[in-house]
């Protein structure tokens, strides 16, 4: 990372060893020029002091899982941690096995890969992830709260990272975090007034990880929230990096 490219507003972020939990790579049929290829994405990460990112591929989200995963493998970089995409088909599970995943991203909605999140549909996939301690990554936009509860109840050791929870989520999110110890969420859209700071004060820093939604959103927004939260340095560092690295299993930084 070149320090000279770093945004002056966030020069402190260079020491946080940031890993971003919510990043997309590649061409998008929906988001046009906002989508970024590998080198442009890395340059944008440099600007904001983001050392590593948990990355999924737009092709896997918008079109074909196998092809998207192949594109992700092709564009891989030492600073990317792949969030391979999956669906319940046996062939996809077999492909997944060869990738030795640390994280798997799921797209349930009808305009994505259109499968039920219920255990009768995806139970084998959840079981696979749970057995191998692979992090399941899913956007709240893909899964309603009650459907999430079914998964959490039936697969109690499955680690789930919920992205894009939204700032209106606390009456759902907070009781679920209390009840299910392997549920985590990212900070991208947790942006009500002093919500992030209040969460850390009340619940501690362990269950929240930094996310920006790059390249669709500017990391300046999520970094602004993290940088100005009146929390301890230890808590900030945990959210910036060590929480997610722990979930993914000791990654080199």
């Amino acid at each position, binding site marked *: 990372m070149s320090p000279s490219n770093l945004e002056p507003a966030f020069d402190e972020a260079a020491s946080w060893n940031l890993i971003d939990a919510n990043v997309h790579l590649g061409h998008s049929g929906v988001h046009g020029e906002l989508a970024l290829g590998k080198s442009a994405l890395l340059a944008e990460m440099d600007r904001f002091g983001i050392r590593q990112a948990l990355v999924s591929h737009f092709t896997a989200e918008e079109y074909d899982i196998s092809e998207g995963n192949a594109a992700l493998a092709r564009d891989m970089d030492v600073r990317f941690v792949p969030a391979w995409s999956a669906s319940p088909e046996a062939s996809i599970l077999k492909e997944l096995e060869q990738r030795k995943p640390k994280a798997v991203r799921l797209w349930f909605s009808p305009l994505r890969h259109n499968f039920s999140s219920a255990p009768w549909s995806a139970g084998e996939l959840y079981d696979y992830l749970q057995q191998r301690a692979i992090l399941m990554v899913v956007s709240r936009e893909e899964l309603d709260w009650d459907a999430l509860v079914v998964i959490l109840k039936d697969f109690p050791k499955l680690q789930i990272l919920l992205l894009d929870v939204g700032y209106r989520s606390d009456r759902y999110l907070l009781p679920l975090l209390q009840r299910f110890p392997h549920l985590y969420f990212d900070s991208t859209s947790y942006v009500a007034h*002093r919500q992030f700071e209040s969460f850390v004060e009340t619940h501690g820093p362990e269950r929240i990880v930094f996310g920006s939604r790059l390249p669709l959103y500017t990391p300046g927004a999520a970094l602004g929230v993290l940088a100005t939260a009146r929390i301890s340095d230890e808590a900030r560092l945990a959210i910036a990096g060590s929480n997610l690295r722990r979930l993914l299993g000791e990654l080199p930084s």
Partner: protein
Amino acid sequence: MRSPVPVVDCHGHIGTHPDFPAYKICPQEMVRVMDLLNIESLAITSTRACYNDCRRGNKEVEDVLRQYPGRFRGYITVNPNPEGEAMVQLECFSHFHKPPLIKFHPDLHKYPVHGPKYLPIWDYAHQTHAVVLVHTWDSDPTCGPPLFGPIARRFPGARILLGHCGVTWRGYEQSIEIARNCPNTFLDISGSQSHRTILEHCVNQIGDERVLFGSDMPYLEAAMVLGRVLTARISDESKASILRHNFLRLLHEA
């Protein structure tokens, strides 16, 4: 992160909200956050008035203005229902600011911004050169940005802030289109969606003089919007205009 320029914020609130728990919303806590981020002053509308009761809500704003002189400016929030009540509110709280600052929330008040009950209020805003902050949302039938072109042309004395610029990327495109064609419209960049490059796009399309910093505090996190502005690929002069000078000019305090 702290703003290098003392910020004059065009979009804030006081009070709680029904749809999720509120944190640190008392004016004293808000002032602490404003000091943390270097927000010199915040123009506030009553959240109670947006949701439920304009009379009580505007009175609450009055109390905060008295309690914290210089840190807050007050919008008079009006509801077109019941008919005639809005004019009473405008009269009653006309001492908040000159020119008047007026807030509409057509979405929560369930009445379209171009409906006939709003006409006397728009006319008042035109006559008094009021600054009118209106909540907007992408293509919404009560407050979508495309509805504002005819209003802005019919009431050129009103200075219309398109609150949140319609929020989504498409909402921003709609807002920019209105701003390009109507010089009395302005873009308030508060909102929960932090589209990458959108601020650069706004400045490229309409210049930096009609783009205004709004935080939506204490509904949304002010540091989110500040982070967007400070890291946008625009000049430092443009950032200073957005963070401070543009709203001061609208307030006739530049």
